[in-house]
């Protein structure tokens, strides 16, 4: 018990230090870029006096360390500051954009895992076979094809030609109206909210909108997960305990899916968590093609508008996601691998 508390305390401390470091680095980057945030507020026409007034209002005239102290203090209170561009609370803005990304990334990771692991296992158990080659080529395409291009082709084929799915956006405009005016928002994730409201037509429309981008992201993470599964599994299958199990006459499916998989799962959890975290950053290109209002485009837009508080806020959220997923995968790791519990 005491050990567990100790581990959690160390974990939290690490988390705090990591986040502080993250805040510091992003803060410094935000200040050294040769872009004057004031210019993006006041526009081209402003006089020096108007600019100075805004500078004072934003606290940009204070010493660096003081600006950083204020930033960290507010961040701890859940206040990530005010967006320079829109004048809105950044926490509120991110609360609006993040659910869209979360929904997409989660579905993408589920796709990627459900397809990637069996594909990797298949490839590992029959190395050099046609199945292995197919998994390799499909995986390689997922790695190397630009997401931008894949997205457009996907839209062209599945939406443009075949009419299997709906086009870009999270919902058709009419359903979007229903969602906004007749349903209760619980999470900001349309699939969950519409299901909780029992609005199945909205749910169906949302599914037909999300399938393609989620499938695309799923494909990219599948490519990675299947390659990693293959190599972990090949490694395990060469171990002595596998030979022993086979000699004992254990059925092959049991050898692979129970004995070997138990050990493969340990490093695989980290792989899946990392790939999930990567998708949670928000894939800017996918979001642009599919007109998906997610975190990636939020941060990019903010960056182009020299809206450093918003960039910092978004980066902090991404950082928290990374660190949290890291911790979760650490915990899972302990559960799966008894040695790590000691």
């Amino acid at each position, binding site marked *: 018990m005491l050990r567990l508390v100790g581990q959690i305390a160390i974990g939290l401390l690490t988390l705090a230090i990591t986040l502080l470091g993250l805040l510091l680095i992003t803060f410094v980057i935000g200040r050294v870029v*040769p*872009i004057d945030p004031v*210019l993006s507020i006041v526009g081209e*026409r402003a006089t020096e006096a108007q600019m100075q007034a805004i500078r004072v209002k934003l606290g940009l005239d204070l010493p660096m360390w003081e600006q950083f102290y204020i930033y960290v203090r507010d961040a701890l209170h859940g206040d990530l500051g005010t967006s320079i561009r829109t004048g809105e609370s950044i926490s509120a803005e991110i609360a609006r954009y993040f659910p869209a990304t979360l929904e997409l990334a989660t579905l993408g990771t589920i796709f990627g895992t459900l397809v990637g692991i069996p594909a990797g296992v298949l490839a590992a158990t029959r190395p050099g076979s046609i199945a292995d080659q197919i998994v390799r080529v499909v995986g390689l395409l997922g790695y190397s094809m630009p997401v931008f291009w894949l997205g457009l082709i996907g839209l062209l084929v599945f*939406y443009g030609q075949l009419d299997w799915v709906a086009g870009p*956006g999270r919902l058709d*405009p009419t359903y979007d*109206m229903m969602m906004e005016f007749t349903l209760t928002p619980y999470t900001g994730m349309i699939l969950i909210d519409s299901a909780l409201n029992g609005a199945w037509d909205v749910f169906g429309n949302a599914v037909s909108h999300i399938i393609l981008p989620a499938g695309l992201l799923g494909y990219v993470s599948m490519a990675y997960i299947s390659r990693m599964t293959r190599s972990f599994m090949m490694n395990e299958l060469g171990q002595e305990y596998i030979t022993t199990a086979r000699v004992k006459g254990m059925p092959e499916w049991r050898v692979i899916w129970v004995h070997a998989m138990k050990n493969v799962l340990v490093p695989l959890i980290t792989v899946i968590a990392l790939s999930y975290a990567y998708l949670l950053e928000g894939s800017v290109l996918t979001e642009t093609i599919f007109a998906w*209002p997610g975190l990636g485009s939020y941060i990019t*837009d903010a960056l182009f508008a020299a809206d450093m508080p918003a960039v910092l806020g978004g980066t902090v959220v991404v950082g928290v996601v990374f660190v949290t997923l890291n911790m979760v995968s650490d915990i899972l790791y302990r559960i799966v691998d008894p040695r790590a519990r000691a």
Partner: protein
Amino acid sequence: MQQKLGFARAVALAVLMTGASPMALMAETPADTLVIADAIDDIVSIDPHEAFEFSSVDLNNNVYDTLIELDPSKPGELVPGLAESWSVADDGMTYTFKIKPGITFSSGNPLTAEDVAFSLRRVVKLNKTPSFIITQFGLTPENVDQMVTFDGDTVTLKTDKAYAPSFVYNCLTAGVANIVDMKTVMANEVDGDMGNAWLKANSAGTGAYVLKSFKPNEGYVLVAREGHWRGDAKIKTVFMQHIPEGATERLLLEKGDIDIARELTPTDIAGLAGNTDIKIQGDVGGQVYYLALNQKKAELANPKVQEAMRWAVDYTGMQDSILKGLWVVHQNFLPQGFLGALNENPYSLDLEKAKALMAESGLTLPIEVGFTVRNNPERMDIATSIQNTFAQIGINLVMDVGDGKQGLETYRGRKHDITLQTWGPDYPDPHTNASTFALNPDNSDEANATGYLAWRTAWDPGPELNAETEAAVVEKDSAKRAEMYADIQRKVRDNSAFVLMFQQARQDGMRANVSGFYAGGATDSASYWTVSK
């Protein structure tokens, strides 16, 4: 188990719905609905007295009205908006507007002269970015209650100087002069913000539409109101969807899921040629492309070098290739559509003439100068073309490529040699561009007058041109005023630190059944209430 069944049902339903999604099957959007795709991530605020971006002003143009409007068919002509008549007193400083009777706001409140006075005062008191369009008549938060007054159905606006009446009227057609519903706005005031926070998500105007929903970076929905003073709009619901990618828009347009696509690239437009379901509507925009030559550098202050450069730009070559459909050759600082705009483009690529001029300059050739360019594909294409042609006349441009804001700081700090820039007018009056290209009262570094492009590039227009520009803004006779701007433009075009090159063009793709869409030209914004299908 219960839960599992529920989930299974959800999945089954989802699969069913995917196959039978009603919008996916529909070939076209309903006849009373208009779906527009555009990039609207430029929006900072949709409060009409704060909005200063293309997309937000487009939105507000359909939700609010101004006292006076511009007639799109006749550049420079004014037509009544919420005011039925207007006049200026003999002193040239007192303007009176008579409000049309019987107009109501979307709330049902009748429009009164008090609403008009409140709106103009609100612009000044809120003091947001576009407020200078109104405050330049000498209005301040302290004096505005005395300068803008109302009595019965008339509103009186006093100015600090006897400006050209057309200047005042043109500024009153800008989006910042939209009239809001005082009672509704003030009922939603928080902490003395005059309803600013509330108007970022709601509307309170006399326009044809009411804002039903606004989601930044996602889109907005406008619903037509009954009893609009222009007559009810044919399109009952307008959906604006934020779709920044041209190729995506093209696909949606071809499928009939959207009616108008506003971010198509020349490649998309070319790909749509021959599709009889779709038409392309061209228009101009207000921006101009120009080179600014820093006069602190002796070579660039040499008039022969300046003239040589004007003959060493491949205007039509760029227009017909890299800028196709996006920019047209335009060598004067007022865009087409403005009072006094010129249609003459005397310069073309003539390297022999340019070389001869360089030889006359007395400089040892070749000369080497820096060229500050923003890192964006279009600008890089233009810069490369110019670098190529300039090299042939003995001017070697050394590119300094950077982020837009970075380049802007170099320019504002007078640290550039030559820079490639665009400029967009702030309000639909010629003074907006004349006051920055042709006016620079104090060219010293200490003046730090970054608001003037002439100052930024260290060019002194001289007392005569400065005076002419100041005189044009107070000239009472509009025809004479137009003449003056024509003259000022010729002087700047032929003898200044600027090389003016292009005016923005735009192409909107739309379904063949859409008619009456007006994109707004260089001086106005998009109107949806004129559309029918």
